[in-house]
């Protein structure tokens, strides 16, 4: 068998995947690009070419800038909280205690709970009149009266982040735990004999093993967080006073509620560009980390 034939055969085997990907991703993406230069409506008019008008309008509008900031904060805060809590939970799960295997098994629960169910659950928990969070905090005396968690701009985004974090930190924890289990026992033991402190042991012995897997988790979670739609749609629909209207919600509103497919498309592409830049930056970072260790 020649190399040529092997390569051809590989392409043939890839063909179904590539055809499907071009049909359901490649073509729609190109069509979105085309639409973004038109004033097409969702139903009815095909629209005519308007050049860069949509982009100019979107980028200069305050709606976009605000949503970008909201998305940014949502992504940064929820992902960093998930990473920190996830690693701490993993370190804990790597200790010995009664019921360890049961707790490890339970960690999968939040992750397996469908996102929409999670959002619904937390919306009920945050209910300003009959929610469990208000009831709990008042009963243990941490709060003197019920609060409107999802109704105040100050707490709405934080409440969403908490709900998102609860669902996703176990994923980080499980990934980190698997990496921790790969740390050879004798290395840890040796460093203890050397008298290394807890922090330096974590920093110089454990962390290098965690870095790779955590970077991957970080990239995946950040991209997900930038695309966030479901949890916000179910919990606040972007309110109060648009304080939780992330980019995806904004695109939905533009393209589907207002039916402006053209400017919706341009907005969606700007979001895509942002995520791409982010991913490329991360990829560079990963390569650097990999090179260093």
């Amino acid at each position: 068998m020649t190399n040529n034939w092997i390569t051809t055969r590989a392409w043939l085997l890839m063909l179904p995947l590539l055809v499907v990907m071009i049909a359901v991703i490649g073509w729609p993406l190109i069509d979105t690009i085309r639409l973004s230069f038109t004033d097409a409506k969702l139903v009815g008019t095909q629209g005519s070419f308007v050049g860069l008008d949509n982009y100019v309008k979107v980028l200069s509008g305050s709606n976009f800038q605000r949503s970008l900031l909201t998305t940014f904060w949502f992504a940064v805060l929820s992902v960093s909280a998930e990473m920190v809590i996830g690693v701490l939970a993993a370190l804990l799960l790597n200790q010995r205690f009664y019921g360890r295997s049961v707790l490890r098994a339970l960690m999968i629960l939040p992750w397996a709970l469908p996102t929409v169910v999670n959002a619904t659950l937390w919306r009920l928990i945050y209910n300003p009149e009959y929610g469990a969070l208000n009831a709990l905090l008042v009963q243990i005396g941490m709060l003197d009266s019920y609060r409107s968690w999802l109704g105040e701009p100050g707490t709405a985004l934080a409440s969403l982040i908490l709900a998102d974090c609860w669902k996703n930190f176990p994923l980080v924890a499980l990934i980190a735990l698997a990496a921790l289990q790969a740390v050879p026992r004798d290395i840890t033991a040796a460093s203890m004999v050397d008298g290394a402190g807890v922090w330096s042991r974590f920093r110089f012995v454990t962390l290098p093993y965690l870095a790779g897997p955590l970077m991957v988790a970080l990239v995946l979670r950040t991209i997900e967080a930038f695309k966030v739609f479901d949890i916000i749609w179910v919990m606040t629909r972007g309110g109060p006073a648009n304080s939780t209207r992330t980019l995806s919600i904004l695109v939905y509103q533009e393209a589907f509620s207002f039916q402006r497919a053209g400017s919706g498309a341009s907005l969606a592409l700007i979001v895509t560009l942002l995520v791409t830049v982010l991913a490329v930056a991360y990829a560079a970072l990963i390569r650097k980390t990999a090179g260093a260790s």
Partner: protein
Amino acid sequence: MLKSVTTALLGATLLAAALSAPAHAQTKINALFMAQAAYSEADVRAMTESFTKANPDISVNLEFVPYEGLHDKTVLAQGSGGGYDVVLFDVIWPAEYATNKVLLDVSDKITPEMKSGVLPGAWTTVEYEGKRYGLPWILDTKYLFYNKEILQKAGIANPPKTWAELSEQAKIIKDKGLLSTPIAWSWSQAEAAICDYTTLVSAYGGSFIKDGKPVFQTGGGLDALNYMVESYKSGLTNPNSKEFLEEDVRRVFQNGEAAFALNWTYMYNMANNPKDSKVAGKVGVVPAPGVEGKSTVSAVNGSMGLGITSTSKQPNEAWKYITFMTSQATQNQYAKLSLPIWASSYDDPAVSKGQEELIAAAKAGLAAMYPRPTTPKYQELSTALQQAVQESLLGQEAPEAALKTAAENSGL
């Protein structure tokens, strides 16, 4: 392992496919309703059942979505050939639906009996530029509900006639320690907030649009928002109102935690039902108040109609269904959660029995119904206004500045 998983999946798929296979040869129509306020889901299902009993050759698939999803679902289903045949639409959408050809023009299907029998105010629900896009079904406005027991305890003899009086009475209730926040509204960032706002706009004699330009940022429109903000900041209004929809208002009112609440017709009989309500028998209802020197009562047109989509392949069956649902007989039978569109129904003792108070309020309220603006860009206008209302309530912007921004972003 994989094999068993795939087999299981395949099995489930096949089983599901078999279960969902159509087994009859009748005409099937799909209808979209909302699961919020007015007729309950159970009522709609019961009405539909009577219809299919009377018309065994037609079967009706019912779909219920939250009000917030009703518009988008209708519009999105346009693209699917086999989408809905009958859709429920709000009074604010005919302009857009007519412009985008979402609904069939049914002007020539309307009989003289309908023309003369249905209240004139109800017709405005389905009209745009002289054409009719369906039949009115829900004739509704927001009323002021009050808890008779709490007012009595506070020594208040009569419910408020003006918005200023409402604040005074709420203050008395608050000061006497009966309730810390006596008034409940639906001010969530949603259309519900615009309905409350419109009620106040009508009380203050304001208007939304003049000569195609927004004017709500001045005069009555501004007064209305100022009233809301003041009521919120003074602590007379339940601060959670800013994330309430109609159902939250009802729950709070039914639980005896609000002395006053602005809500639709349906709350009257639900709050009077001892099964779910702690305030049954204590529910009072009056038209929403007015403003001294400007109005005696206020009301928003919150009516809704049933129309046929332009993509429907069974427009005749769909029309049959709509006429059944909107018929006087059907509406009189289910007059507890939504009042009939038919003028003569209001004199029918079977309709008014047990809800005389509501009927009395309705006679004044329905006559004063004030429309939200009629424009194909209503969605954008409403979204901008919702933002203005919320920002003002939350103190992020002064009402005047917020409404000015809304006027700029309204798309008009």
